[in-house]
């Protein structure tokens, strides 16, 4: 993974010193809250319901055991013993004290982590495929490009004051595991017919108040031109994006208002006029330099272990279930990508204790060349596991409650922190996830339901990404009470789609029974167990499901 050089270190440490100074001036009263708020957001610090929340981006989801140990230490020393993984590959601490932030940032800087641009009107964590570099269906590794872009857009002087926040994602595989079409700019790396690396560029996606899937801006962009092209997009947005209305200032609104054609003309004209071969040469030099950080680890010859793995599965049904749900094929024969489920039914989705973090760091060292990945579903991956080690790793994960065989299944529910933590929330989300997961377990439906993506957001900002869930739940406030809307027919990835609202909201007491009625209907009416829920919804439409959801509750 990327390792800082002296320049990176200087930048991060200068930023820590500067923010520490700003905190001191805030605490003394020299800086008022209005001036300070913007600064603290640009350094990853929200004020939430109970305390300050610190968000630390894990750039493109790549985490080392060393970093994870320090994150565990911070959870223990400065928080309440746990942390939360988010839908944008970040980690969050929910109980931070402002006066301790300088010490926390110093410690993070020591392991090359920084909350720069984690929040606020800035260019946020550039996310990627959690299987980048190891995916069986990988076309080209997006990580060097993600790192390149991270640097290019970190404190880029031209783009420090965009109209609104800006989220980007980049993939390089056949399947899009980074939801690029739900981002302000999404990039897909591929090889063109000549075998040269190129990007497909999408622009103007975003969830939240006005969900939109990004249309394609450009089909083919030579890879080395990507940073300058992105700069051209940002420049057009910076100059022409609306600044008069908080809910109309994302780039998706500009693309929508201008129309894609006109927007494309603006970008292409800007790009053609400012294309600078000197800069492209710098990009290539920098890419060459940091590519060295993303070479594969020293894989061993482990092909023979495939048979071992198969034999284990045959003899152990519980292990077989884990293999089927949580373990993924790897680019390299004899290796696997092993998922760590942070969704034990009844647990808080995405939460992990300091002890679990330490254990995962040890397991990463032992089984995965010291590396982990954060996923968009609030889980983790160990990306380089020998087939012959999977069984033992599973046992260690089981002991720690991290091996629930439910990845991409019904109980792998994505849920934002919601009204239990978040200042912006209009309803609680976690308890709904917990209750639903418990009921599904009780009914034994977890595995039966097959691949099923349930996502819950506690407010219209949609951090739970409910719009792209096969089943989405949006928690609102109606007349002082929590009210939950169901959406159906959403999908992420290459086949992305936005869910449709089923009807009026359900109360806190009614939402889980309504969801269960929908699922029961699906189980009864699906053509075969192989017909996934998302396909069933496409086939039958949402009408029958609407009827069932709003049917009077049975005793």
């Amino acid at each position, binding site marked *: 993974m990327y390792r800082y050089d002296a320049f990176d270190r200087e930048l991060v440490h200068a930023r820590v010193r500067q923010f520490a100074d700003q905190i001191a001036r*805030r*605490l*003394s*009263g020299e800086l008022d*809250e209005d001036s300070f708020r913007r600064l603290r957001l640009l350094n990853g610090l929200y*004020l*939430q*319901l*109970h*305390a*300050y929340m610190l968000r630390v981006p894990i750039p493109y989801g790549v985490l080392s055991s060393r970093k994870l140990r320090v994150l565990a230490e911070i959870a223990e020393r400065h928080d*309440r013993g746990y942390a939360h993984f988010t839908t944008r590959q970040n980690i969050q601490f929910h109980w*931070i*004290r*402002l*006066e301790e932030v300088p010490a926390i940032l110093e410690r993070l800087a020591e392991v090359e982590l920084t909350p720069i641009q984690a929040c606020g009107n800035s260019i946020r964590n550039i996310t990627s495929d959690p299987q980048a570099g190891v995916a069986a269906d990988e076309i080209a590794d997006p990580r060097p490009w993600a790192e390149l872009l991270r640097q290019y857009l970190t404190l880029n002087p031209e783009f420090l004051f965009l109209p609104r926040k800006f989220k980007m994602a980049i993939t390089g595989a056949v399947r899009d595991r980074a939801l690029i079409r739900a981002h302000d700019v999404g990039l897909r790396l591929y090889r063109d017919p000549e075998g040269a690396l190129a990007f497909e560029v999408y622009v103007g996606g975003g969830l939240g108040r006005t969900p939109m899937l990004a249309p394609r801006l450009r089909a083919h962009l030579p890879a080395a031109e990507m940073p300058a092209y992105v700069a051209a997009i940002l420049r057009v947005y910076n100059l022409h994006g609306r600044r008069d209305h908080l809910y109309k200032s994302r780039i998706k609104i500009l693309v929508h208002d201008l129309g894609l054609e006109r927007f494309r003309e603006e970008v292409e004209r800007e790009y053609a006029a400012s294309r600078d071969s000197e800069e492209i040469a710098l990009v290539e030099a920098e890419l060459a330099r940091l590519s060295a950080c993303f070479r594969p680890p020293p894989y061993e010859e482990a092909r023979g272990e495939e048979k071992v793995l198969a034999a284990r599965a045959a003899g152990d049904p519980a292990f077989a279930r884990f293999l089927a749900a949580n373990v993924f094929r790897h680019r390299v024969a004899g290796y696997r990508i092993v998922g760590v489920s942070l969704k034990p039914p009844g647990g*808080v989705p995405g939460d992990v204790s300091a002890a679990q973090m330490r254990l995962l760091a040890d397991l990463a060292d032992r089984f995965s060349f010291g590396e982990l990945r954060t996923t968009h579903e609030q889980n983790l991956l160990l990306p380089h596991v020998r087939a012959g080690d999977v069984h033992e790793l599973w046992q260690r994960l089981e002991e720690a409650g991290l091996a629930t065989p439910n990845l991409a299944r019904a109980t792998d529910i994505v849920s934002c922190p919601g*009204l*239990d*933590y978040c200042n912006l*929330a209009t309803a*609680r989300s*976690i*308890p709904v996830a*917990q209750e639903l997961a418990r009921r599904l377990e009780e009914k034994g439906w977890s595995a039966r339901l097959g691949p099923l993506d349930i996502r819950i957001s506690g407010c219209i900002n949609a951090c739970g990404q409910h719009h792209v869930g096969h089943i989405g739940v949006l928690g609102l406030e109606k007349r*002082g*009470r*929590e009210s939950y809307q169901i959406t159906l027919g959403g999908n992420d990835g290459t086949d992305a789609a936005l869910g449709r609202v089923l009807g009026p909201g359900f109360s806190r007491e009614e939402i889980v029974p309504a969801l269960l009625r929908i699922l029961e209907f699906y189980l009864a009416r699906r053509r075969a167990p192989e017909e996934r829920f998302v396909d069933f919804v496409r086939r039958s439409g949402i009408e029958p499901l609407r009827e069932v959801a709003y049917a009077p509750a049975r005793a």
Partner: protein
Amino acid sequence: MSAWILAAQRLRDGRVVYLSASGWSEWLAEATVARTEEARRALEARAKDAMAAAQVVDAAPIEVEERAACPVPVRLRERIRALGPSVHPELQRPTSREGERHVSL
């Protein structure tokens, strides 16, 4: 009848506090209750001073139902702020110094 208390968050650590007779208290039960518009405005004035003095942030009056032992916030959001996250009973705190819990979610 409307009643109000003043809720804020302590600048240095973000913890929820309430304006009480003896300053800013973590204990909901100690919050000073305003029963008139005038009393409420007085609370707001003290909040403004405290924010200007860099003691607290986001100080604002919240509506409560007045009970004998402890005012109870009307909004769920404020009850969650008073107690702690509903999903972590072990992280919740009592509403009085003596360790009682006068509010449910």
